């Protein structure tokens, strides 16, 4: 086995070495500067600066500043574009490092409209936020969104075997983080620890993770942070462009691909469209010693959008469909505590079959539809109103291993529909203060589809909520910007549940919550930027926490809800420092945070109960007060030309204040060290990147006493290698990459994997991907 992997890895090493050997000219010049509005000299945040010949570019920051490094001496053609501006081409003679100012013609209304439509990150004044750009997503294109996002410091994943991955931000996950898909709150039964998000990460070009409490902007659930999948702007000029990507994954013997086609409509400037589709087909994953039986995945997604905009009006419509069929590790399905103890003692899965693509019970089938429509109108030169409506239908079937040929009848069959609507007024008050005021509403119904032959785990319910919010930005000086806002929201929850005696009860709950935020961005100097934010967030208890009653098979536990629980309330402070030192040779990015959550709801052991399957531990949903704090850090040092070293570290601590105890299932300390090699051009190849990484995850030593069935797994270190490069083919380009994870087939288990009791994690994995992009973008 290892020999085969080494043979496959050989090309990675060779291509990096060859690229290095060919690097004759000294290409270490830096082009930096600012992109500003030609009229009022305001910075143009997130303008794109692109060198077509190199296939290389940079996105300006909030203050319009950009840096392009590792350029070769000579003439350089730069294309600068910004939303709502005509792109500008500049030719620069590069002999030494250059600092320049680029002015664009800009229409302010269009920019603001885009900010609102796409929830651009400059909305998050003071909030620490990190982006996963297309290039980073592309490297993990064969894996799930949870696995992609776990590359960001402060972000990890809560897994249920190799197929199910949920994002954890600063120690919080599930209903304590919010996902915005195309600007709409994603509602897909995210309360379940074994429910992965039902969306296709490849339907967006960029994913932003906001690491602060953000209920003012987004409403309930944004306690730990917000994941925002952002679509690219629709083309507005005539012409068709697109891309096709294919990938193959060695571990799980899987294939995947996606395709995108977009264009503007000739004769109608401002009208654009895009269609996109993707899919993955994976068989069983493999741990170093054995097959992880029944861990196959089938996944497909498609989306289509059309949009129009001119100086006054804009409107767009978007539809996406997502389907996933996945197997749940067979050996994780156990009958009782005896089986669990046997699994822990034996150290190997009790069921291992031959590799197969087939998916058997236990398995999950989900389908998710999203329809979004929005429209905006400029009611004055600077004020604009935007309406957004979203409809989601989430259809989930879970199949269990059952007697009497019932394995093909879902044991859980839920249909969740959600309507969301927002109306937002973007306005200016005087010369400097600008912001938005809005109303938002959510209407949601959860229905148990009859016919399962099992008492529903989650009762039927109807949830209605409405809120109003105000968020204002105040630039104090060119270097300091303040943000302040508040929201108030009321939620009504109607539940319909049959008791054990088959009596229908329909309790009603009402929750009223409010949140505030205060933030500041301070550009101390060109190379040092600070962000501070103190914000609050809230979360009404989920119906599962109020009304669960019964046996949770995967957890070998009886779980009991408490209908008297009230909302969780979080107060979180973040401080984020981004800085360049020694002329850009050293880059540091440090985020500190502290999060106090009152009335934090969790499962506490509450005795045992006798059933026909033996004695089961009982867990009761209770509330406590908790305090979480931690650090995320990225340090990148340029060692020599083309080479740099990068360290990413995440530390999080969670304390239960009432019990004076550590919190269960908090990510342990982790650190990634990488040696990076980057080269802008060798022959016809450009944007050559190679990396060798070491991912160290330490054993979790901070655990609550007596809550877990076994001790946390040991520390582990996984070595990875990756290489990618672009080849320009006329007007089109092809990018190809190879990525190896867990290179040495290390046997390990992760504390944050709920299936660590049953089996080892995935062994060596090798992904080969290729993308072809055509047409102008």
């Amino acid at each position, binding site marked *: 086995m290892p020999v085969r992997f080494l043979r496959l890895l050989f090309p990675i090493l060779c291509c990096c070495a060859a690229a290095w050997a060919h690097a004759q000219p000294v290409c270490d010049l830096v082009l930096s500067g600012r992109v500003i509005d030609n009229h009022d000299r305001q910075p143009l945040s997130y303008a794109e600066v692109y060198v077509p010949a190199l296939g290389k570019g940079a996105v300006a920051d909030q203050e319009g500043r950009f840096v392009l490094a590792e350029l070769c001496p000579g003439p350089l053609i730069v294309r600068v574009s910004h939303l709502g501006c005509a792109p500008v081409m500049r030719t620069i003679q590069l002999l030494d490092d250059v600092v320049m100012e680029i002015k664009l013609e800009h229409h302010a209304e269009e920019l603001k409209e885009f900010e609102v439509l796409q929830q651009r990150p400059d909305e998050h004044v003071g909030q620490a936020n990190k982006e996963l750009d297309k290039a980073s997503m592309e490297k993990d294109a064969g894996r799930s969104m949870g696995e992609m996002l776990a590359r960001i410091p402060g972000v990890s994943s809560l897994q249920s075997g190799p197929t199910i991955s949920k994002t954890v931000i600063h120690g919080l996950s599930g209903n304590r983080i919010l996902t915005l898909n195309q600007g709409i709150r994603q509602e897909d039964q995210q309360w379940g620890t074994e429910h992965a998000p039902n969306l296709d990460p490849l339907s967006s070009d960029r994913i932003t993770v906001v690491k602060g409490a953000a209920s003012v902007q987004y409403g309930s659930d944004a306690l730990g942070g917000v994941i925002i999948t952002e679509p690219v702007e629709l083309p507005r000029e005539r012409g068709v462009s697109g891309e096709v990507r294919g990938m193959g994954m060695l571990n799980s013997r899987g294939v995947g691909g996606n395709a995108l086609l977009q264009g503007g409509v000739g004769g109608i400037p401002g009208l654009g469209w895009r269609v996109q589709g993707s899919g993955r087909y994976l068989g069983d994953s493999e741990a170093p010693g054995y097959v992880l039986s029944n861990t196959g995945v089938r996944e497909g997604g498609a989306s289509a959008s059309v949009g129009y905009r001119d100086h006054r009006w804009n409107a767009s419509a978007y539809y996406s469909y997502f389907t996933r069929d996945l197997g749940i590790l067979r050996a994780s399905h156990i009958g009782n505590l005896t089986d669990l103890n046997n699994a822990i003692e034996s150290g190997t899965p009790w069921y291992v079959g031959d590799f197969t693509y087939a998916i058997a019970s236990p398995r999950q089938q989900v389908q998710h539809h999203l329809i979004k429509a929005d429209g905006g109108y400029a009611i004055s030169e600077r004020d604009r109103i935007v*309406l957004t409506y979203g409809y989601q239908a989430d259809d989930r079937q879970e199949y269990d291993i059952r*007697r009497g040929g019932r394995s093909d009848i879902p044991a859980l069959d839920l249909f969740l529909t959600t309507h969301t609507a927002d109306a*937002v007024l973007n306005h200016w008050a005087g010369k400097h203060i600008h912001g938005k005021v809005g109303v938002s509403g959510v209407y949601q119904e959860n229905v148990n589809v*009859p*016919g399962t032959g099992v008492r529903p785990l989650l009762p*039927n319910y109807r949830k209605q909520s409405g809120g109003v919010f105000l968020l204002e930005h105040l630039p104090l000086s060119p270097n300091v910007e303040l943000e302040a806002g508040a929201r108030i929201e009321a939620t009504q929850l109607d539940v319909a549940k049959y008791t054990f005696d088959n009596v229908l009860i329909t309790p009603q709950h009402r929750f009223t919550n409010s949140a505030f935020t205060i933030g500041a961005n301070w550009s101390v100097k060109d190379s040092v930027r600070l962000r501070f934010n103190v914000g609050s967030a809230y979360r009404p208890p989920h119906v599962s926490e109020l009304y669960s009653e019964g*046996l949770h098979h995967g957890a070998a536990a009886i779980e009991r809800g408490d209908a008297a629980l009230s909302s969780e309330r979080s107060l979180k402070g973040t401080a984020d420092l981004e800085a360049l030192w020694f002329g850009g040779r050293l880059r540091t990015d440090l985020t500190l945070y502290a999060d106090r959550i009152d009335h934090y709801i969790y499962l506490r052991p509450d005795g045992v*109960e006798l059933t*026909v*399957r033996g004695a089961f531990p009982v867990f009761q949903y209770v509330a406590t007060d908790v305090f979480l704090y931690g650090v995320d850090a990225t340090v990148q040092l340029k060692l020599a030309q083309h080479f740099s070293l990068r360290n990413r570290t995440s530390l999080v601590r969670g304390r239960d204040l009432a019990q004076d105890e550590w919190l269960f299932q908090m990510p342990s300390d982790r650190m990634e060290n990488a040696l990076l090699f980057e080269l802008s051009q060798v022959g016809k190849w450009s944007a050559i990147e190679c990396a060798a990484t070491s991912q160290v995850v330490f054993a979790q030593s901070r655990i609550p006493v007596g809550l877990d069935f076994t001790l946390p797994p040991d520390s582990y270190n996984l070595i990875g290698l990756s290489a990618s490069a672009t080849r320009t083919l006329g007007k089109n380009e092809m990018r190809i990459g190879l990525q190896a994870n867990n290179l040495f087939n290390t046997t390990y288990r992760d504390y944050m994997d709920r299936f660590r009791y049953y089996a080892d994690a995935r062994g060596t994995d090798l992904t080969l991907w290729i993308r072809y992009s055509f047409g102008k973008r």
Partner: protein
Amino acid sequence: MNTNLKYMSLAIFIAAAIVGCKKDKNEDVLNPQPPSNEEEVITTMILSFNGLTGAGDKELRFTDADGDGGGAPIFDLDTLQATANYNVSIILLNETASPADTISNEVLDEGVDHQFFFQPTGTNITFTYADADGNGRPIGLQTTAVTGAASVGTLKVTLRHQPDKSGTGVSGGDITNAGGETDIEVIFPMVIE
């Protein structure tokens, strides 16, 4: 600002109208059908001891009327006779259904994937399998039991789903290498006199 207010109220109105547009399924959401009978629940497990050579018929019964969770299960226990022979059958019922479903028939139908194990502690009793699945291996719904001297203790009865019946000792009744997952695990208090 006046115009702003006008447009804002328009926006609120539109949002409210959208939120107000509910589906006709409302009634169903908060007035669902009663849950169908829990089809696989085992509420009752009966060990029926049919006395041979003069020993009377006895019964050990476990009942958890509302299934897993809810109320606590109860035991109804007869005392077995010492140094006697019994034919033992296991009957599993789902008494949430009316009439009660005999779950043991489903176990019999899927006999290849099921096996009972008997583990006495402190009691002088031994079980011998008296039935066979399609592969000629025991299921354990039918056994013969031989009691020894008077004793007091427990009998643990376990039903494993998908056990490795070819594992060492498994077909002889040793659970050690059986694997699989547990469908039933009941510990009966037992008195032999």
